[in-house]
């Protein structure tokens, strides 16, 4: 049994390496052909990434980018799960609030950004808003749906054995909904990353958005791609952390959600 598990883990790691090799390899080839003048090879991009790291530019940039990102994702997570819980528990609140998030999810964000800038200026607030608009709807809607779909029979059981309202929410509804809540969180976090970069491209070029904008303006495409690659890597690390958190919180009982 244990041996088999190790082999499986090994194999999934090998598969991951293989698929990375495949992606990066075809990137390298596409860059060498070249597909476009503006498309650098993988190795050029890695070199540019290395330069960004040793010059420290990348860290300075992320210190800037992470502010709205972390703040926005945190607010979306806490508020989103809270509102989602309420939406799932109360039909009236669902009726009142869900449409807002459906609209938020489908609204063209680029069109909203000028309004946000008018209302909140070009500072951190607007950027946090953009992250929240991207991240929150899917968290709220997933949480609401999961809470609503808790099996009636286990809620009834909690009631029959004299559970209070908060017992039933905390000990039955939340654990039952947790796999879907975490799926929503993962989607929300990914969307939040997009929001953070979008806000830096559309509001004021700061942080990683600045690297992208600036390197594009001087046609330093390897640096531009290096910056984009770094965002993707960070997002993957973040999602893995989230999954680790889910496993420690809910004992790894919820199987079948693998993002890495």
């Amino acid at each position, binding site marked *: 049994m244990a041996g088999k598990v190790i082999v499986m883990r090994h194999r999934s790691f090998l598969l991951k390496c293989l698929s990375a090799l495949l992606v990066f390899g075809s990137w390298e080839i596409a860059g060498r052909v070249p597909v476009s003048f503006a498309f650098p090879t993988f190795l050029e991009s890695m070199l540019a990434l290395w330069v960004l790291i040793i010059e420290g530019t990348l860290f300075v940039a992320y210190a800037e980018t992470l502010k709205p990102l972390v703040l926005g994702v945190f607010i979306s997570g806490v508020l989103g799960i809270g509102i989602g819980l309420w939406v799932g528990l109360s039909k009236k609140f669902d009726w009142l609030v869900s449409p807002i998030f459906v609209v938020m999810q489908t609204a063209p964000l680029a069109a909203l950004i000028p309004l946000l800038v008018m209302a909140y200026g070009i500072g951190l607030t607007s950027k946090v808003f953009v992250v929240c608009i991207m991240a929150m709807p899917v968290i709220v809607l997933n949480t609401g749906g999961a809470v609503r779909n808790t099996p009636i029979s286990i809620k009834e059981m909690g009631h029959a054995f004299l559970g209070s309202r908060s017992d039933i929410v905390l000990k039955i509804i939340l654990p039952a909904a947790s796999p879907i809540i975490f799926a929503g969180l993962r989607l929300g976090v990914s969307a939040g990353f997009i929001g953070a970069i979008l806000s830096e491209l559309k509001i004021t070029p700061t942080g990683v958005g600045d690297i992208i904008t600036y390197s594009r303006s001087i046609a330093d495409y390897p640096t531009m791609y290096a910056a984009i690659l770094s965002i993707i890597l960070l997002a993957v690390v973040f999602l893995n952390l989230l999954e680790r958190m889910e496993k420690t919180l809910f004992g790894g*009982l919820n199987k079948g959600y693998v993002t890495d």
Partner: protein
Amino acid sequence: MSAKSQNTDNAVSVRNVYKNYGDVQALHDLSLDFPRGQLTSLLGPSGCGKTTLLKIIAGLLPASSGEILVNGQPVSGPGPDRAFVFQDFALLPWATVLRNVAFGLELRGVVKSEREAIAEKYIADVGLKGFEHSYPHELSGGMRQRVGLARALSVDAQVLLMDEPFSAVDEQTRRKFQEDLLGLVKNENKTFLFVTHSIEEAVYVSDQIAILLPRPSRVSEIIRPSGFRHKDTDSIRRDSEYLDIVDKIWSSLRTYVE
């Protein structure tokens, strides 16, 4: 029929209960008494409202009209005097057998060490010793049902409401459970309300059998097997009164089948 059952007081009384689900009338002017310390079966065709009646008694569903008395007090919701064994088990899939069995006590605020000690005792009583740390998905249907039974027993309620507790198990296990249930009725001094589809099962385990008509449901007949209760568990199934009652119930129910 027997003098004994008429003299005992009633743990639960159902008085003129109606229940409508929208246009569907599930229960129609149903009245029934459940004598204390005895096992009463509700027997009737599928969909006749047995689960509905049990849930109304449990306080999980409101009746459309009518009244439920438990120990003479009207019921307005679930209470510590009643415990429920669910038809679909209603176990928490993320919790171990131990936590599931102790869950009723957990909700009552009993401290962990105490509730786990009680749960362990009942886990052993229902024959699941060694499975304390298994999860429900690792158990068979019959074992899950025993977890549900242990959970209901561990809160030590006077009235046990059992909704088809043996429907998910094979015939051999079922017979074993029925014998165990007779032991429980004898030793635990609780009142049992027991829903079943099986005529033989009802006659085998019951002090009183209430036969329900199809929707809208009323009690059509109450039967009190009395002659073979004192016999040992093996000879009951060969007893002539047992066989007669089974036949009699079948002939009154068969008109509703088809």
